[in-house]
């Protein structure tokens, strides 16, 4: 009977753990207003960007048809996900890219579904 009791106690826990909700928050998105209000295109330095936006999550390089030369870019990434068991209940992301040219702040692109 001890085995049966153990199963009756563990089974609901097992079922619950299979579908319990886990919320994951990864990264941080800076305040986008600062891109225009506290930084100056062609003037602000990478140090200014770190001071205003904080250190980036990562870095990269960009040369789209809009650009005449490759530009270094910094990436700020954030994500919030809610998992119920193995099922994704919510997934929101935010991306903010900062471009540099000649060691100066040169533009940005950001978009986010985080609220």
């Amino acid at each position, binding site marked *: *009977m001890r*085995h*049966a009791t153990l*199963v*009756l106690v563990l*089974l609901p826990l*097992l*079922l619950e753990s*299979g*579908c319990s909700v886990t919320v994951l928050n990864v990264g941080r998105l800076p305040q*986008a207003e600062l*891109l*225009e209000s506290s930084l100056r*295109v*062609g003037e602000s330095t990478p140090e200014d960007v770190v001071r205003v936006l904080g250190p980036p999550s990562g870095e990269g390089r960009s040369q*789209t048809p*809009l*650009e005449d030369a490759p530009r270094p870019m910094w990436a700020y990434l954030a994500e919030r996900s809610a998992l*119920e*068991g*193995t*099922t*994704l*209940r*919510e*997934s*929101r*992301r*935010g991306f903010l890219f900062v*471009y540099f040219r000649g060691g100066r702040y*040169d*533009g*940005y*692109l*950001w*978009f*986010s*579904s*985080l609220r």
Partner: protein
Amino acid sequence: MVARREDGRIRPGRRAVSRRGALLRSALALLAALGGFSIVVGCASTQTLGARPRVEALSSLKVGESTAADVLLEIGEPTGEGSARFRPEMEPRQVWSYEYTRIRSGWGSEDVEILILLVFLHDGRYDGHLWFGGGPLQIGSR
């Protein structure tokens, strides 16, 4: 056959113990099967996050002419927003972002489809777009 302990209590015979053990094993097997079935059925599903933007309708929009209302009508409601200033001489563009994720899970197979669309707006008019997507991408461990 009924055996008695030294204290006089009746001790169940081997057959009785065996029958109880068999019942217990059957109950355990049934519970395990039900538990496994519930986990699979309870969490097996197709999940969609966001509405799939109608990227095929982008060709009906005209740069500098179509309004934000036209974008809403043709593409749908955005899931997020943003802003872009690609070049120093360029005025900032408003960005509407659309994220769509579809996850199919359960029955030993899991895959994901992702689509991201950015629509650029300038002075309330459609100014271009960027979209990319992929899938179904198999979920697995490497």
